[in-house]
């Protein structure tokens, strides 16, 4: 991967030049707001006087020391973990079946799987809200089946958020695993069969390990997107089931404590990066020798 195709002066600089515009774009549009958020988080806030001109770590100390925030952070990453695990459980078989289909079924089902991505997250989540609500489809079904007269509502519950987020994010997992499955040499499965492995053993010992890079990268995507998800937790979880993103939003818009909101946002970012980077390194160390 690192071989230098063209020698000579300037050749080494070429990649930098070529990525330059992208980097500038990235810095301007992402780096600058992030930096401003970070600086904002270092100011203190007074309910009567507003944002102060001082420099302090008080906001960080407050968030890190408050059990209320501990709970929100815990819930967020618990949610992210759970959604990731469920997405793997659903996405892996789905991707496998998809990779075994031949056209035209393959195209049809790929469209079915990816279709949800074409609809706005907000619209999809509102759909779930109708479904979950106190007099929604779920309640009516439960009542019709005789599970009691109480309305079954999943609104403002952890379960409801989990289901809605899995629905939103599972296509990412499927795409990621599917891409990995496409790269597998089908003859390696044939080889396992001729060596005496059953179909199931072949799936478990040959196919699954080779799909692992896809599962792991899909997990990173789903985890990161869940941990920072806003729309779905805001609609399904609401005020009662806050996650970090909605908590930050509330600090900004309800309490108007912008510095505290910025602090929460920065902490979410840092935690997310820390988790993903260490996970990625674990993966790299495990697979560097095995896969390109």
């Amino acid at each position: 991967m690192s071989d230098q195709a063209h020698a000579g002066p300037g050749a080494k600089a070429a990649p930098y030049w070529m990525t330059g515009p992208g980097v500038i774009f990235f810095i301007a549009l992402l780096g600058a707001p992030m930096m401003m958020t970070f600086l904002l988080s270092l100011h203190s806030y007074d309910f009567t006087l507003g944002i102060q001109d001082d420099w302090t770590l008080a906001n960080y100390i407050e968030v890190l020391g408050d059990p209320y925030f501990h709970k929100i952070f815990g819930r967020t990453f618990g949610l992210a973990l759970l959604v990731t695990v469920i997405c793997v459980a659903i996405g892996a078989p789905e991707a496998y079946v998809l990779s075994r289909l031949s056209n035209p079924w393959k195209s049809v089902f790929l469209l079915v799987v990816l279709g949800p991505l074409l609809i706005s997250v907000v619209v999809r989540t509102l759909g779930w809200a109708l479904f979950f609500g106190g007099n929604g489809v779920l309640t009516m079904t439960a009542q019709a089946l005789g599970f009691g007269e109480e309305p079954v509502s999943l609104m403002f519950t952890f379960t409801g958020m989990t289901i809605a987020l899995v629905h939103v994010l599972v296509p990412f997992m499927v795409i990621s695993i599917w891409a990995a499955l496409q790269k597998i040499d089908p003859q390696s499965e044939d080889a396992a069969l001729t060596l005496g492995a059953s179909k199931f053993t072949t799936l478990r010992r040959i196919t699954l390990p080779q799909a692992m890079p896809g599962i792991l990268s899909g997990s990173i995507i789903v985890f990161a997107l869940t941990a920072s998800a806003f729309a779905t937790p805001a609609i399904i979880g609401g005020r009662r089931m806050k996650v970090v993103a909605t908590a930050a939003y509330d600090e900004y818009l309800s309490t108007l404590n912008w510095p505290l909101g910025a602090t929460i946002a920065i902490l979410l970012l840092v935690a997310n990066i820390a988790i993903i980077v260490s996970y990625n390194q674990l993966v790299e160390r495990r697979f560097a020798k095995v896969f390109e």
Partner: protein
Amino acid sequence: MSFLTLESLNKQFGDFTAVKGLDLSIEKGEFISLLGPSGCGKTTTLQMIAGLLTPTNGRILLDGKDISHTPPNKRGLGIVFQSYALFPHMTATENVAFGLEMRSVGKAERLERARAALKQVKLDQFADRYPKQMSGGQRQRVALARALVIEPPVLLLDEPLSNLDAKLREDMRMELRLLQQDIGVTTILVTHDQEEALSMSDRIVVMKEGQMEQLASPLELYEHPRNTFVSDFVGKTNLIRATAHANDAAGAHVLVDGEMITLPGHSLEEGRDLTISIRPEKFHMSDDASGHEVEVRAAIFLGSSWLYRVSSKMGDLFITQPNNGSAGYKKGQSAYVRWSQDAVTLFEEGK
């Protein structure tokens, strides 16, 4: 009785017939090659024997038992795929030990046998490497060790040498043949490389469009190809037009470029157009004005021999002459070629 028998084996993909009525009997310990151009159904045949494809018609018998419908994991044949199909997430040792593990061989014995198999293919120092960390030739040998370690009754090789460079390929031919004779495993090699087939096999099956064209030993195939297809595909040859002239006790007399040659054992209708084949190395080329005049169009030095392309009244010919240390002919030079009568193979079909 033969060890592996294919009985009028057929394979159809939709309305396309990839293999048509293949009959073949293979003796125990024999090395058979399936030789033919790309797309002639070699891999399809091999995969049917391995159980990865189900024949549309016909039977496969192994040691007297019909295995046509036995699943591949119950056949226990060793197969080396063209892409090697190593398991990328396992080391060389783990790759080789996999088949033993599937046979419930204990861990210690499994490792020991895997290492022994790797040693057999001279890879013992690479036992702990992953496929990605090995060269093409090394991967090829891991694949071979993986197929051999399960002590299969039949070893199936699908173009195992085609991804290797020329030098390595020649070395591996010899190694593979020696190893096969050592172990005595019945082997079927699929190849489109006639040199490979000629140098390794006991017998060669030449295939064309799903059918067997000829089944013969390498020498027989080379010296007595049954038709122009085989003769052209196996080794280089020159196909030359000729006309039947007369028959008598000595055989058929045939006119080639003004020279009368006799083909013993033939009797041909007078005036008929024929095709004869003469191998490039069967020509004798000299400056003496006897035989057929040719003009050298191109001369290529191959080390042990010279390869000439010459033009003559018989058309363009390929001629090889052993290198005896002299400078050889140059482009544009004239020379004379002769051949002995037994160098000529006759095909009754017109060209």
